[in-house]
């Protein structure tokens, strides 16, 4: 992609649109030839698709998960046996097949889902995928390797250009200095007398300022007012923790979960739908996915030290807390509840209900919590002050559509205020007792 955009820009700069399309075409064909070389086997492709759809929930290629690792499974078992097993494993265990019973017992009697819908051909494809060993990463490494190299060199280029420019400026300054020196010398030589101009003596500015009483008054008043403004500002931010970004016991990245993986907020914070608390998800919710995701394979942020290794270590912390024995794929029962640092703290005397806002009002989580999907470390986005609440209540319309509860009230109130849409404030959302009890 890097090359592509760079090329694109360069072409654009040249403003030669005729070159653009052929260049792109060349580029695309260049890449596609690459992929064609890498994935020559259609069966492997089909197998991969099927594997991800049907098997990946319990199996990994190289590692034991809920079920055994599948790399090289065709070597271990007879092809026909595999057909029968995949289509109906339970029957096979019941029939007392030695191999089947052995594997059944090895995995503590967990039953493998039957896949009668898979044809023998499908199974062949899956096996082809599990047997496929991708070519040594030397060839493919050239492409990803090329991009950083290129970008690195362009950085050097910039530096050189900047350095050259600095040099030129320096030379210019030196030259100017030399010219002035020469001119002065010429002037001295030609007998011209150059004297610095002498100004008539004036009262110094500070004295003039002190003598002007009005000005002193005005500036004192201004000074007082502005300092009062800053003092007020200082005091008003006491207890406002906007931007509070504490270090958490487990480095949980909302950027990866909500951003890269597009997990819906309310999947984990499910009680926000029904309760006043959004709830910090219990660890069993994490394990819904992390039972199978034991290591991090996404993008890295090397600048901040967020390597794959770093993230994988954080997943291990989760396993330690929930008591998950990775090698044996079972819970040990030894748990260490995670002590998260609470970020959003409302005072005790404020009643806030998530369900009212999220479910009834259909307010997006981001309205108050900000761009969570971009937050590597979670922080408090909104000030959570009363003024902030009130403003929103004044501006936000109540979602009354298809809610039987509002039907009568809304009709009467909108008639009273003569408006189509009612704000929360008009519904009584500014009354003290609605939030303070």
């Amino acid at each position, binding site marked *: 992609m890097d090359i592509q955009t760079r090329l694109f820009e360069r072409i654009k700069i040249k403003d030669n649109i005729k070159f653009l399309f052929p260049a792109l075409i060349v580029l695309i064909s260049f890449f596609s030839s690459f992929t064609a070389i890498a994935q020559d086997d259609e069966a492997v492709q089909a197998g991969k698709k099927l594997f991800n759809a049907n098997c990946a929930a319990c199996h990994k290629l190289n590692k034991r998960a809920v079920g055994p690792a599948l790399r090289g499974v065709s070597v271990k078992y007879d092809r026909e046996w595999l057909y029968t097993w995949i289509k109906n494993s339970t029957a096979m265990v019941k029939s007392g097949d030695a191999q089947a019973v052995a594997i059944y017992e090895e995995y503590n009697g967990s039953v493998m889902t039957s896949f009668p819908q898979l044809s023998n051909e499908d199974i062949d494809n899956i096996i082809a995928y599990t047997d496929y060993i991708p070519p040594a990463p030397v060839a493919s490494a050239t492409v990803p390797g090329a991009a950083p190299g290129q970008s690195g060199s362009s950085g050097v280029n910039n530096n050189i250009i900047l350095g050259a420019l600095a040099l030129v400026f320096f030379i210019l300054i030196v030259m100017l200095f030399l010219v002035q020196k020469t001119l002065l010398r010429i002037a001295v030589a030609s007998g011209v007398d150059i004297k610095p101009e002498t100004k008539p003596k004036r009262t110094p500015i500070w004295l003039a300022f002190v003598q002007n009483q009005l000005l002193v008054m005005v500036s004192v008043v201004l000074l007082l007012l502005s300092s009062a403004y800053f003092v007020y500002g200082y005091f008003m931010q*006491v*207890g406002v*923790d906007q931007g*509070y970004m*504490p270090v958490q016991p487990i480095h949980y990245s909302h950027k990866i979960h909500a951003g890269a993986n597009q997990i819906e907020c309310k999947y984990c914070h499910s*009680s926000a739908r*029904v*309760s*006043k*608390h959004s*709830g*910090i*998800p*219990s*660890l*069993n*919710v994490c394990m819904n996915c992390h039972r199978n995701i034991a290591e991090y394979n996404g993008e890295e942020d090397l600048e901040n030290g967020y390597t794959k290794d770093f993230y994988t270590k954080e997943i291990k912390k989760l396993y330690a*807390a*929930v*008591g998950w024995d990775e090698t044996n794929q079972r819970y040990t029962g030894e*748990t260490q*509840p*995670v*002590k*998260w*640092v*609470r970020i959003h*703290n409302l*005072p*005790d*005397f404020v*009643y806030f*209900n998530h*369900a*009212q806002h999220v*479910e*009834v009002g259909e307010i997006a989580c981001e309205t108050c919590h900000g761009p969570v999907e971009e937050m590597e470390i979670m922080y408090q986005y909104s000030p959570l002050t009363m003024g902030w609440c009130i403003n929103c209540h004044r501006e936000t319309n109540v979602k009354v559509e*298809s*809610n*039987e*509860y*509002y*039907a*009568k*009230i809304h009709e*009467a*109130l909108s008639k*009273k205020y003569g408006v189509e849409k009612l704000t929360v404030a008009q*519904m*009584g959302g500014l*009354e*003290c*007792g*609605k939030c*303070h*009890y």
Partner: protein
Amino acid sequence: MASNKTYWKNIAQLDPSDEAVKKLEQNEFVSKLPEDFLSDEKTLEESSTSRRDFLKYVGFSTAAATIAACEGPVIKSVPYVVQPEQIRPGIANYYATTIADGFDFGSVLIKTREGRPIKVESNPDAPTLGIANARMHASVLSLYDTLRLQGPTANGQDVSWDDFYLQAGAMLKALAATDKEIILLTPTLPSPTTQKIIADFIAAYPNVRPVVYDTISSDAALNAYETYYGQRALADYDFSKAKAIVSVDADFLGDWQGGGYAKGYALSKTPHRDHGKAEMSQHFQFESNMSLTGANADHRIPCTPADQKNILAYIHDRLIGGSAGQLSADLKVFADKAISALKSSGSQGVLVTGLDDDAAQAVVLAVNTYLSSAAFQPEQPKLIRQGNAKEVQEAFQAIEAGSVSGLISVGVNPVFSFANGNALAEAISKLEFSLSFTSKIDETAAASQFVAATPHYLESWGDYEFKSGHYALAQPTIRPLFDTQQFQDVLLRLAGKNSKFYDEIKAHWNESILGSSSWSKALHDGYYSIESSVENSIPDFSALDVSQLRTATSSGMSLVLYSKTGMGDGQQANNPWLQEFPDPITRVSWDNYLTVSMSDANALGLQNINTADGALNGSYAAVTVGTQTLKVPVIVQPGQAKGTVGLSFGFGERMGLKDEMQTGVNAYTFYQNFNRVQNVDVKLANGEHEFACVQLHNTLMGRGDIVKETTLEVFNTKDKAYWNPMPQVSKDHIEFDVTSPEVDMWQEFDRSIGHHFNLSIDLNSCTGCGACVVACHAENNVPVVGKREVRKSRDMHWLRIDRYYSSASTFEGDNETKENISGIGDSLNTFGEMEQAAANPQVAFQPVMCQHCNHAPCETVCPVAASSHGRQGQNHMAYNRCVGTRYCANNCPYKVRRFNWFLYNKNDEFDYHMNNDLGRMVLNPDVVVRSRGVMEKCSLCIQMTQKTILDAKLKGEEIKDGTFQTACSNACTTGAMVFGDLNDKESKVAALHEDDRMYHLLEHVGTKPNVMYQVKVRNTDEV
């Protein structure tokens, strides 16, 4: 222009030689400040801290505090590792369970938040005893009692349960081998499975003899029922089917025969116009002490216990036949009235008695059978009292004599609650084997070798049969907080069984009770009933001998023992909610006392004094029954029968209680032979007792705008304007209703849209039971302030139940007396007399909380607008905004605002539930805990109404009537409190708002409250 006038404040200032004036010109005070103002001078001089140092310290600590305050605290949140499916943080779960502590029995719902039980509510669906009284509401706090036993002990040492089983089991086996008798002393356990387990246990250890011990016995009633119906049980009553109720010393709105009758009673006591004319029941009460039941009666006749027996015999003789005995003239009038009421009501009449006398109880059975009373239901008897006084006494005698070798006491504390407790304690400590199942180290546990820590009922399994065919299930609502085991589990293991109590219950229910019904459903509901159509044969009462009742006489004073609404038998004495709960009649909290009639008090020199600050003091009396003497503080009780004194059970315990809870005297000392009536000698003793009383004993003086009441006759024959007039104000010489917009100075809110909450309180069906007071405490995190603070009128009850006396036969009578006063001399006398509550006053109860005025006087005076009005009718109080000027409390005509004089939570100066981690678990997380210097008051449970609204929004549906509730209306089982949306024209509360009986408190002030009252109607005329 300046004037030359001399201003003076004091005549003395005019005299230039006055020393004091001269001195005052120099000094602020004539004399020096008292020395103890800053300890004494000497220490001040010797102190090394100079003024400079002091300022340095202050400066430093202020700066340090300021810097520290800028740094926000780091708050940790710890989610579940594996979240239980049914728990969602922030959402309450309700579980149906059963309370059965041997005294209180009821089906209840437990509200839990994040796994913590925080509130007890009635189970409205349960057909039997689905009503929670004040003690049951408070029982959730007893779960979080810091003095609960945390594990088993043997010989005073903490042991593990394994060691406990090893040691106790060995002792049991040794005793069984030598066939030495062991007594298994239990309270009434109407539990089918427990009885089975006990039977199995006895099969394993045949030397064990079970004895059932009710601390407050219903022995006489049980004996009478057993004699005529062949089963040890109690006849049930349904007062909703009664038109004439005659009660001879039966406090059936209190704890008589297990209680639970208030609901039916209130139904019949509210005037209903089914057939044109309004009808309601008529209630005669013959009693000695002023009981809750007597206070609600239409005719209350104070009389001695001997008189009561005579009256019972008289009623029996006049109705069924026999030579009627003698009655004094004034009693005869009322006895005849009662008899004619019974006669004219036919099968709608009912007679009850609480006398501890077999014959008296038999008379009741005979009379009700004779009347074929519809309210009398002997077919399905109640099983919640089983105690056998004779057996208990024999057992205790055997223990004292040493003819028994062991005692296993289960949830009872006989050393405290048996009349001869001290001797019993000594005997128990000498026994070979003694084991006490208890949840605290009480007097009996202290005397026992082995103490088995039992869980609270909210941590326990259980099954009960309240009434034959009516079953209830108990389930744990929280994991045991401490290392405790249920008594049934311990018995099972000692008997060598492997199963747990839960398995036994389930098996037994599936086998013998449920039939084809589902166990899960029964557990979910908390109850299960089998409709039986057993027709009892009518017993033959011809052999009943009432001669002993006819001739009963008394000599000297009689002591009548009773149980209080708040404390009951005293099991929950360590519960600060119940200690602070003011008694409905005397309005005294944190105490028990001797109630004495005015004439007896005068004769004995006993008195009550109101001190200048409004607190109440009382003399002490030396009370002697037999050889036992106690020094008891005295309350002069209007309506106490002359020649009788009353004293309540439940107080005076000293072990297993925090220091502050060790209040009152132990009335069980006087409870000889399980008879509530004892001959007594009362003398004046030294000293003066300080009470914590929240309302003095003055009468209402006909202030009819506070408590309005009328008689059924007036109610039926006269116009509303006569008995419930609207106050008038005059504008331009024209009279207007005070509620008319014409005379309104205020701008009216438009409340026609959305909800408009109103609470209706029916003075007819309010029995003053106080369940709402405790429910309000639990729901709203109301703090407990302690006896010292209550005495200073700093009680924090958001909801109080005022008790008003009237000296005349009705409150209107007061008005007439007042109006007929002529001349100043007469007025002084008459007012003085009227202020003295009479020998037999009328009583009215009136629950008062914030009236949520639409024109609220508190709102206009708040300088910071902390008190404001909501469109839904609630008067809001923003605690975080309040600066504590207390202007609002000054300006409130109803005096319902409460000020936090101290920080009542996390404060070492107080030792109640809010001051320890365990006790704070009961707090409702939806309501803020208020801090010092903040005004608070009833919010009309806005957290509950808001929750209801949110639920409706989430479901997207309109709110049906009855869904809106407050803690008090929810706790009110008699239906006196009805809460709802006035804008919902179909709602009950909207109908009540239009009712003729509706009035507002102090209507003439023009506050337009959102709490309304219904005029009390008394059925004092002939039926």
